[in-house]
């Protein structure tokens, strides 16, 4: 801190700042996350648009019946969707606990949310590779590079999977911070921001599931 600041002491931070209605009350981090999510929404938008244009241009979907590509199973993935929605609920509960500064509950619900994320990722591995049981889609003949059907499926779902992975790691880091007591004093901004990302990932999945699996 320079001498000039020291001379002026308390005046270097304007006192009346917060009263100014022009500035709102959201923290910089929260605004940044919202803007990032808008931006990220447009990247999903670009990929989903590609899917839409390719599918609209094809005579049938999957486009080439002679490749014998498997149809996507809805039941299993509907389960995964439900899991992700549940993890959004626990996320809300974690945020609520943070508002009340209840460390035990924050940890419990954040851990459940992380578990939801891990569960979804395991489910996706099962779907792709048959990691736990039976054959995955790849072994059944849905090969990346095989057709526009396979290409769009793998690019969009794995791009979303990457988001789930990022979100799970992000929430895990938040969980550790919570264990260390960072959110004890009702300081819930960090959890709210992580929650924004997680709900976004969830919302996007509902769209992806609708477009790719259901329609």
């Amino acid at each position, binding site marked *: 801190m320079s001498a000039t600041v020291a001379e002026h002491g308390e005046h270097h931070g304007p006192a009346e700042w917060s009263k100014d209605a022009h500035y709102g009350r959201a923290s*910089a981090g929260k605004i940044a996350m919202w803007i990032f999510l808008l931006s990220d929404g447009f990247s999903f938008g670009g990929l989903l648009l590609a899917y839409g244009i390719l599918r609209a241009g094809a005579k049938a979907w999957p486009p080439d019946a002679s490749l014998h590509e498997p149809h996507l199973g809805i039941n299993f993935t509907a389960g995964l969707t439900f899991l992700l929605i549940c993890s959004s609920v626990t996320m809300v509960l974690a945020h609520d606990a943070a508002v009340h500064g209840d460390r035990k509950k924050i940890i419990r619900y954040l851990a459940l949310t992380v578990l939801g994320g891990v569960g979804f990722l395991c489910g996706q591995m099962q779907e792709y590779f048959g990691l736990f049981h039976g054959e995955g889609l790849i072994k059944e003949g849905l090969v990346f*590079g095989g057709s526009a059907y396979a290409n769009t499926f793998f690019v969009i779902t794995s791009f979303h999977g990457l988001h789930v992975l990022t979100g799970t790691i992000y929430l895990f880091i938040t969980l550790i911070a919570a264990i260390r007591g960072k959110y004890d004093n009702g300081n819930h901004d960090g959890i709210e921001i992580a929650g924004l990302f997680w709900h976004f990932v969830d919302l996007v999945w509902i769209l992806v599931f609708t477009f790719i699996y259901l329609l």
Partner: protein
Amino acid sequence: MEQHIHPEPKAFIWKYVFSIDHKVIAKQFLWTGLMFLALGGTLAMMIRWQWAYPKTAVPVVGALFLSHTGGAITPPTYTSIFTMHGLIMIFWAITPILIGAFGNFCIPLMIGARDMAFPKLNMYSYWMFFASSVLVILSFTSQLGAASAGWTTYPPLSTNVGAPGWGQTYMALAIFATGVSTIMGGINYIVTVIRYRAPGMTWFRLPLTIWGMWLTAILNVLFVPVLGSAALLLSLDRLAGTHFFVAGAAVGIQGGDPMLFQHLFWIFGHPEVYILILPVWGIVGDILSFFSRKPAFWYKGSVFAMIAVTVLSAVVYGHHMYQTGMAPLLGLGFEMLTLAISVPAVVLFVNWLNTIWKGSLRLEVPMLFALGMVFVFGAGGLTGLLLGTISTDIYLHDTMYVVGHFHLTMAAASFLGSFSALYFWFPKMYGKQMDQNLGKVHFWGSVVFITLVFGGQLVAGYSGQHRRLFEPYQYTYIRHLAPLNRWTSFAAFALGATQLIFVVNFIKSILMGKKAEQNPWHVSTLEWTHCASPPIYHNFDIVPTVVRGAHEYADPAVKKKFGRDYLDQVEPGLSAVDEDSSAGMPEPEAIGAE
């Protein structure tokens, strides 16, 4: 929101290389951008050489880089040259100079913040950009030549079918990387302007420069991801054996669609031209007011016009695809929306003219460049009407007319606007004064030759010369245009030579320029009135409280009381009674009390 003061780093690497100081990052962007401007300019000279003296040895550059052909340009090299020229100028020259350098430099200083909202993110943004620059250079070293599908990177030319080898792949990855960098920067700019304005710096007291930068950041954040998704899919097509953009015999009915790329590209690509011009509009709007010693005419009108352009720019991309066989009704819709953009553009234009009307003009170098920008942008904008209208576009599509049009609006206007900004803020960046006489020579050479070059392209295109032809004169109907093209090339070489004056001036001024005063232009914005030249590490010891807008000039009462013709954004000014009756600006306490 208060920003804390952090101690200035002492070690070289933290102070100059991995710096989190927005002023240093601005200089990093500026230098990288200027280097790429020189590279892109050299490539332009090579294209012009080919059109002036086809298939003959290029002087100097040919001996250095094309020795295997005796210095002459071959068709494959030629396609690489114009592709790399376009991509480099747009993504690695104009973008970093205008947005990277002046966005970073001006936003915190002009709104009264101590740094960006996320200084580290700012640093990552530069180094991500640097990584993408490395990929661009790598593209040149590729064995099968640099990217060669045109700057628009259309498939099938840009797929492995049309452009095999690593050159095009590196560029697809470089576009992705620079997109990530732009988004990081954009989020930072938006949040900084929303959250870190000094107290009293309300939205309508912001300098127009900040409005331009802020709206550009919004467009960047929204539409660069769409380009990113296109670059991602193209990279997968090239590297992973997919075929999103490959159709026809190569893949069969399970294949993709080349038109898909055009949609994704232009959804981004049209906002991109406003991304490159909005900061210039803002900068020029401010500088015209500062050097006319008059308030910016209808400031709010300019702001709303820029907002209107920002919104409209998102819904007109189809006019790049008139000739792709789109439904006529859809084309008509795009045509109407496209022509609707002229309304806010003309509002801005008339505001600029009214700002300088009867002003006390100070024709210093930044003002000259700003006036030059108004001129070329006017010319470029008018020529755009013929391209936005489908019936005339059928004839002009893919001709040199298109090249002339977008170079006047995007290249010439951004170029002159960038130099206006550079001459204007140089004293604040480096604490030195640039040589004004050399600057004036640089301006007159630039504006005259840039008009001749792009004017020549307009004429050639209107006469039917197609763009991107390696040897236009093999077509008999273009043969008579050879002298026109040659004279246009001479103007281009003169334009290139003029830039050497700037290089000399820039380096000379940094090394041994006269020390600049704090406010050499006698203007009213915070970076000049409340920061030293160059500013201290945290910009403001005391964050000032702003009481008025950025363009308070030519008030006779102020002149009588203070002996100067402007009020800065902070000082109390005339007595409170006079202030209320003359300016009608509420005091900050009044706003706070609401």
